[in-house]
């Protein structure tokens, strides 16, 4: 026998939850079955409707997540062009930058020191 957990105003019972889930599932499938079955598969009738436009491949119609920052990148284009250029992705370059900054820092410390 499954116990009913009570938390003041609400309760939790896995059996009731499962029954409710199955009822909702049956309702969802009922409405889904009301859809039209007479369309022709593997034809344009099964394609996405884009106001009559040709539907591009999935890779081409995918909008990347960083698209949300488009306005930011476009506004600061001059800054990003300068900053992104040194970011080559090559470790040797980064080590070179590190050594160069260390050397400049060392010179400044020695002079100021």
């Amino acid at each position, binding site marked *: 026998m499954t116990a009913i957990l009570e938390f003041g105003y609400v309760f939790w019972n896995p059996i009731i939850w499962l029954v409710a889930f199955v009822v909702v599932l049956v309702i969802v499938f009922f409405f889904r079955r009301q859809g039209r079955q007479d369309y022709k598969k593997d034809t344009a009738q099964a394609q996405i*409707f884009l106001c009559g436009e040709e539907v591009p491949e999935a890779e081409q119609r995918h909008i990347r997540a960083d698209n949300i920052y488009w306005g930011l990148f476009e506004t600061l284009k001059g800054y990003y062009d300068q900053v992104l250029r040194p970011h080559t992705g090559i470790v040797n370059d980064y080590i070179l930058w590190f050594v160069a900054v260390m050397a400049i820092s060392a010179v400044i410390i020695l002079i100021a020191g």
Partner: protein
Amino acid sequence: MSLKAFKRALWVYHLNTGSCNGCDIEILAVLTPRYDVERFGIKLVGSPRHADVLLVTGPVVRQMVSRVRRIYEQTPDPKLVIVVGSCGIEGGVFYESYSLAGPVDQIIPVDVYVPGCPPRPEAVIEAVVKAWVKLEKAEQGVR
């Protein structure tokens, strides 16, 4: 005529192929309380994939040819095409214009023509009813 084979509501997709908007306003009038075709189950839908009937206005400009064909192909069978307005029937005031590829029946098959510039809402409703009867006969033929 009672409907025996085509029992569901008639869903219509409105396609503007370069119309001046006159016919489109009359189609809108068909939906207003004065005519209110939704009480008969005639409903405008936002996708041809849900539609039984294509309601085409305009003379089909060149830019629209591939779109019109694609939308026609995307409409599930059985489907009917109604052309509303003189432009879609024979070019209307745009007759022999450089930018036209139409009229509509040179691009896709047409079942019902509604002449007028623009036609009155009553004419549009009559055309839809004729299309409905034709669909009923088509459905009966299938069964």
